[in-house]
């Protein structure tokens, strides 16, 4: 097994691949280029990124790259099945809650003051218009989007597809958004540790992933204090505020990492009332939620878990 790792998108990127080393190295190089290109394209922290250019022309039809068009089309397709709980148009609400700069630059204790006195309810992202023939899109006037999570998932899947052309089997993790292709030699699946959101240095469960993708949304990550109040980056589109969920994190297994990412976020926001309904009708999807007491619940089958909190399954 060969590995490559580096930092991008303010998170850790890890490639794992089996195959001839000289081929795998070429794959690593190309997959790195996919990630780097995506990082420049989808960041909201650079005014020159394609995303921020698009945000500036809300209300107008605007030609976009094939990568941007694909991410936006996929994002729009997840809005209805998540009942609007997945909504990339939360950027103004995210900024108002203090997440106005890269997380590495955000002071843990004392983010900037709220830029709006009232919570900002995001517009319906499904109102985004797309023109596949002209590869153009139109954001409704006033809509500002953040593609942070879904772009990360989309890039993990894209990089894994790229790496797979050079490897016998491979896995790509972009900050925990993971796509696997093929099975490791002599193994029944890829082993994916699920971080305990209460103790991030420990795993609370281990998944066996045979194909597809995994992603986790967590309120324990990317958090800060604003006027003494603990804030995090998972915005509930119904309130425009950081979500109040009984769960700390939700991990979703799905065919692609962008889908897993969108549904992990929606399930986390929806909590135990909505998550089962959101996930049950999606082919190939299962979820695992962890609450504040460390209890696990979800729809993952026992054959998809190798252990839970040190307990044999």
């Amino acid at each position, binding site marked *: *097994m*060969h*590995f*490559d*790792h*580096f*930092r991008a998108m303010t*998170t*850790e*990127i*890890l490639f*794992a691949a*089996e195959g001839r*080393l000289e081929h795998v*190295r070429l794959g*690593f190089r190309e997959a790195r280029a996919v990630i780097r290109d995506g990082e420049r394209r989808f960041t909201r922290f650079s005014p020159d990124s394609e995303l921020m250019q698009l945000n500036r022309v809300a209300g107008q039809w605007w030609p976009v790259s094939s990568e941007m068009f694909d991410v936006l089309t996929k994002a729009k397709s997840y809005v209805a099945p998540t009942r609007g709980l997945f909504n990339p148009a939360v950027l103004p609400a995210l900024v108002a809650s203090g997440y106005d700069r890269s997380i590495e630059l955000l002071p843990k204790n004392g983010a900037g003051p709220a830029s709006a006195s009232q919570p900002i309810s995001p517009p319906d992202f499904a109102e985004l218009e797309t023109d596949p023939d002209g590869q153009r899109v139109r954001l409704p006037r006033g809509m500002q989007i953040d593609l942070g999570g879904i772009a*990360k998932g989309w890039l993990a899947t894209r990089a894994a597809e790229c790496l797979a052309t050079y490897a016998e089997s491979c*896995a790509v*993790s*972009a*900050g*925990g*958004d*993971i796509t696997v292709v093929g099975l*490791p*030699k*002599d*193994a*029944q*699946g*890829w*082993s*994916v*540790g*699920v*971080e*305990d*959101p209460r103790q*991030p240095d420990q*795993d609370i469960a*281990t998944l*066996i992933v045979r194909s597809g993708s*995994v*992603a*986790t*949304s*967590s309120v*324990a*990550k*990317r958090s800060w204090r604003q006027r003494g109040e603990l804030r995090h980056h998972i915005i509930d589109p119904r309130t425009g505020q950081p979500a109040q969920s009984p769960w700390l*994190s939700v*991990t979703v297994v799905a065919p692609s990492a962008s889908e897993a990412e969108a549904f992990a976020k929606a399930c986390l926001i929806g909590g135990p009332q909505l998550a089962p309904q959101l996930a049950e009708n999606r082919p190939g999807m299962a979820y695992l939620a962890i609450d504040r007491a460390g209890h696990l619940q979800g729809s993952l089958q026992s*054959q998809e878990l*190798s*252990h839970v909190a*040190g307990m*044999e*399954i």
Partner: protein
Amino acid sequence: MKRMKSVLRLWMASVSLGGFLGGWVLLAHAPKPASTNSGSNSSAVAPMPTLAPLPPMNADIGGGQFSQPAPSIPSFQSRSFLPVMRTGGS
């Protein structure tokens, strides 16, 4: 005194010459080093063994590549392996 000096010089020259010739004979009869090239092209350089780079000690120092044996995950009952990947949100 002069005679003493001459004897000393002769003795040092003899010992040096003897040591040199002894070493020559010793090396001439030593086993030859194993050939690194069994092919017909004697100018070709034998391939060096490839060593896998060491795993990084700190993931934050700029990344890198490394190789290691495939993790052993043949059994769902096994708890002795480390997960290849981790997920926990980002």
